[in-house]
């Protein structure tokens, strides 16, 4: 709205007297930058309270800080691996007590998943015996190799090749799994055992038929 512009002169919308400036007086400069970061103060702070109580609490505070660092609740960040392992590091480690929380008071999802190697071994053994294969696989292998020796060299060389491939596979798997968790290491062990089992069982089963067939029918084309 075209209000009264004071006939070309600026007029304040509020009573300038109330703010404290008389009419026509020079207004203070406009502030163009933020106030200084550490301004000088006219009034210095009051000195600190000292006394027996305060001294005791000060000493207590420092002690508490030190004690907290040694408690088992202080979780240290795992350090990055250094290039050269220093000999002195072994003797400078601070030994802390282990703390086990009361699992009955915590939600069930808090418990670490029980997949340590020993438990894995036991379950693995149980599984392995459960499947009817025992840890005497090397003996089996030797027996079956002897059996096949009688069948001919072809199978044996095939079998050797397959063995080499199998072991390469195993070693590759081993490399991969070294970086995985213990959980998967347990699975890897199982798989290794199963691999051997599968390899031996299925191979020799096939090999019996396969070898017999191919030897007998050499003239026919193989598809």
């Amino acid at each position: 709205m075209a209000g009264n512009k004071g006939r070309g002169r600026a007029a304040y919308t509020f009573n300038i007297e109330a703010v404290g400036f008389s009419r026509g007086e020079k207004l203070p400069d406009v502030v163009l930058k933020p106030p200084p970061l550490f301004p000088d103060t006219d009034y210095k702070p009051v000195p600190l309270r000292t006394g027996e109580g305060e001294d005791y609490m000060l000493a207590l505070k420092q002690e508490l800080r030190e004690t907290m660092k040694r408690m088992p609740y202080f979780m240290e960040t795992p350090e990055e691996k250094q290039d050269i392992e220093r000999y002195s590091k072994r003797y400078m480690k601070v030994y802390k007590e282990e703390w086990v929380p009361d699992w009955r008071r915590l939600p069930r999802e808090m418990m670490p998943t029980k997949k340590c190697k020993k438990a894995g071994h036991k379950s693995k053994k149980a599984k392995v015996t459960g499947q009817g294969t025992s840890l005497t696989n090397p003996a089996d292998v030797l027996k079956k190799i002897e059996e096949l020796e009688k069948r001919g060299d072809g199978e044996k060389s095939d079998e050797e090749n397959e063995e080499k491939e199998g072991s390469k596979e195993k070693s590759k798997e081993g490399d991969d799994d070294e970086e995985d968790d213990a959980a998967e290491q347990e699975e890897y062990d199982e798989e290794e055992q199963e691999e051997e089992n599968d390899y031996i069982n299925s191979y020799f089963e096939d090999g019996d038929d396969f070898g017999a067939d191919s030897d007998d029918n050499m003239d026919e084309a193989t598809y």
Partner: protein
Amino acid sequence: MTQAEIKLCSLLLQEHFGEIVEKIGVHLIRTGSQPLRVIAHDTGTSLDQVKKALCVLIQHNLVIYQVHKRGVVEYEAQCSRVLHMLRYPRYIYTAKTLYSDTGELIVEELLLNGKMTMSAVVKKVADRLTETMEDGKTMDYAEVSNTFVRLADTHFVQRCPFVPATENSDPGPPPPAPTLVINEKDMYLVPKLSLIGKGKRRRSSDEDATGEPKAKRPKHIADNKEPIPDDGIYWQANLDRFHQHFRDQGIVSAVANRMDQTSSEIVRTMLRMSEITTPSNAPFTQPLSSNEIFRSLPVGYNISKQVLDQYLTLLADDPLEFVGKSGDSGGGMYVINLHKALGSLATATLESVVQERFGSRCARIFRLVLQKKHLEQKQVEDFAMIPAKEAKDMLYKMLSENFISLQEIPKTPDHAPSRTFYLYTVNILSAARMLLHRCYKSIANLIERRQFETKENKRLLEKSQRVEAIIASMQATGAEEAQLQEIEEMITAPERQQLETLKRNVNKSINRM
């Protein structure tokens, strides 16, 4: 929570529990309650570490969990509880003044470990006390248990909520998290234990072992395989009760400053009588009759009943209204107005802050506005008898720092500035909150400064520590004065000065907290 408080929480958690716990804790404070997987995903830490960190936080009562529908467990951080970690030394010192060294160590162990069973506390405290005693003397478990019972009776330690023992008639799968319950009556009930034994002195060979503790440790743990009689009953320090105690101390010292020693003793007696019967956030205590107060006065004070009545009347008539009269039976029923007392204490603090920061004339204006509630600018100048320009300047300074606020009262519906009243007023609640927030900010700054100073001078500190150790060991083996001198000179004079300055600055920053 404000940014400053979150920053302070992060610094405290980092100092006390390490970086991993700090990351998880600060994330929970910022985002409210969250389930486990979301925390792991958002913070980018492995699930294993998140679980460990949460266990630590729950153990120290900094995080609570809740089971929501569909079996999801959500974790929530208690920011105010993290900030209470600042007051640990004060809690421990209070316990020392009330229950001497035994009480002090009990409270310290409970604060450091979050929750503990009574037997574990008693054993640890007895061992620690035995260390400090002379050779041949040991601390008996019974004495420590007695102090523990006294702490429980005065509500300074309380039982944690526990898992209710349910009969397994419910064949369904166990719930994802136990719901902890605590009965009001059971909170301070001490189990009947017969703890017989004495504190054990730690063998000196244990202290030297650096490479050997591993061998000794399994043996040590194997000793504790006996069944604990109070298994599952955990105790924690009751921080509310300590706060109540601080509040009482504040009120008593205020009365002592305003009136005299005797009246402060009377008020202290009244507060002590209502310690346990009044809940901590009640506006006033239970009414106490003058006869009861007379009977409960401390033994050393032999003032007559009449004098007591006079004092009580004086206290009740005081404009500060700490004590109020609520009836006439039993020689006069008196209450302590807790909320009013705390309000006056807060106001007094505000006044003193304004005085120290801006000067006594500003303080005069501040008190004036407090008293008159709402004042216009002109009225301020008239009542305070301060020239207009200076009054204006001071008012604006206080306004910019938010000690004083402006209340607009428009005369016309269009709120035109020339036709509006602007009244200065003090909103005590908001000013107090602002001051508190400022305190938290400065504490965070001080902690950072202390860490910076310590890091800068780390080399020097380590050197001085080594020199001290050498001197101590040489003194133990009886070295000559000359040798000791030589070793002390390893630290040059300017270094020594630097060390002194550092110590003073660090102490100052700790002290200000």
